[in-house]
């Protein structure tokens, strides 16, 4: 036997051995190997079959933040009238919240509502301008649809659960899962430093990446499908259907933030800006005619940098440099 033939036979044996178990797994789908079936093997929803000891469980607090998948229970030891749980995933996640068991008195004024996004001080992320759903569709009320619709799914990596329980002993349990979002649009960053590439593939929509810190943003690449010449950019991005803008503000709603810079021509190479606001946003507006893409890095501004910006600043608007 030649060396080549022997290597080929070894590779064949390796392949058959590796596939042996998976083939039986696929056979369980009535002998149909469809792309959907293959994808289901990769789906994180298969985690539903995890044994009990692999599921993370803990009690919820009245005001809580959850980033880990698992099962969460709240039990009222006294009336709890103003409670909220923030859920957050990685930028490429969407959130799934499933009602496992609910023991509340809907007729007595109790409620559990899931919001598709975050609300803080009355300001919403994503803003109404950026979210594909009208506002009333972004709320899901357990008392209205919980029984028929036990799973709520978010449109981005953040969601929120509001609840009010009037009687001690009332309780509910939810399972939080993170599902993969192949084209993340609206994102809240978990960290003050990182990098991200936002791609809007020929969709007429606006997407915002929110960094709730004062940061320096360095855009490495901006690719807008249309080819704008440099002259037009001098006049600003008015009239351009595809552009990127940097926003700064002290709230969650991007439509109430200050425009710090806008970019409506493609380029490669670093373009950086410091934004000394509590919330810094990279927002892309897309006409839907082109594939638009922006890559950027961000890092937290140091205390001295902020002080220096404050000293140089004349305006009251968040510090910029």
């Amino acid at each position: 036997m030649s060396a080549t033939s022997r290597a080929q036979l070894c590779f064949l044996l390796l392949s058959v051995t590796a596939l042996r178990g998976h083939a039986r797994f696929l056979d369980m789908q009535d002998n149909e190997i469809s792309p959907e079936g293959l994808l289901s093997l990769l789906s994180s929803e298969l985690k539903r079959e995890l044994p009990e000891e692999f599921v993370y469980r803990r009690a919820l607090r009245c005001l809580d933040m959850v980033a880990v998948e698992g099962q969460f229970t709240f039990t009222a030891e006294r009336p709890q009238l103003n409670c909220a749980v923030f859920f957050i995933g990685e930028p490429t996640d969407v959130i799934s919240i499933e009602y496992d068991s609910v023991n509340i008195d809907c007729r007595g004024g109790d409620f559990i509502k899931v919001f598709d996004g975050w609300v803080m001080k009355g300001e919403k992320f994503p803003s109404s301008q950026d979210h594909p759903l009208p506002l009333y569709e972004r709320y899901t009320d357990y008392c209205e649809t919980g029984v028929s619709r036990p799973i709520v799914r978010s449109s981005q990596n953040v969601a929120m659960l509001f609840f009010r329980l009037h009687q001690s002993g009332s309780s509910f349990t939810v399972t939080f899962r993170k599902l993969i979002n192949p084209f993340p649009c609206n994102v809240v960053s978990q960290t003050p430093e990182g990098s991200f590439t936002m791609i809007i593939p020929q969709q007429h929509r606006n997407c915002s990446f929110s960094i709730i810190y004062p940061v320096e943003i360095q855009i490495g690449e901006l690719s807008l499908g249309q080819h704008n010449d440099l002259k037009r950019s001098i006049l600003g991005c008015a009239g351009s259907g595809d552009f990127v803008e940097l926003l700064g503000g002290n709230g969650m709603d991007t439509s109430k933030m200050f425009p710090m810079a806008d970019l409506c021509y493609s380029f490669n190479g670093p373009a950086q800006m410091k934004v000394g606001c509590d919330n810094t946003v990279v927002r892309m507006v897309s006409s839907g005619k082109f594939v638009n893409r922006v890559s950027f890095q961000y890092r937290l501004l140091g205390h001295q940098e902020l002080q220096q910006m404050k000293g140089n600043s004349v305006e009251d608007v968040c510090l910029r440099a």
Partner: protein
Amino acid sequence: MKPVPLVLLITSVLLSHIPLSFCRPRDLNSLHNQLDDLLLGRPGGGGGGDAMSVLMGEKLLQYLQRSAQRAGGALHLPAPQQDNSLEELSEFSKRNDDPPISIDLTFHLLRNMIEMARIENQREQAELNRKYLDEVGK
């Protein structure tokens, strides 16, 4: 060239010792409960549980969820009275637009909460990885 086929051969021998059951999903009580719910919920639902594969059950769950979402997703406005239709609609809209509870967090508190949630996530992910490795090592 000789070491390369040898590596492949050794790897295939090691893989052949992985029990086939490892590639199957585990037989879970929660899964049985889900399947029981499915069977009980189906009109004229027959057939033994053994006949239903795990993935078929998963597909059925997904199908039922999508059906429920389609049904539940429809917005049913309350029937407005003739005299107060505009006021009723405005009130309805107001109720849904306003956050049900006002959360007044500073960004400082929000950042701290996110940081603690990240730490919890990383800790539990490490714990989960350890459990997986222990399970594989059995």
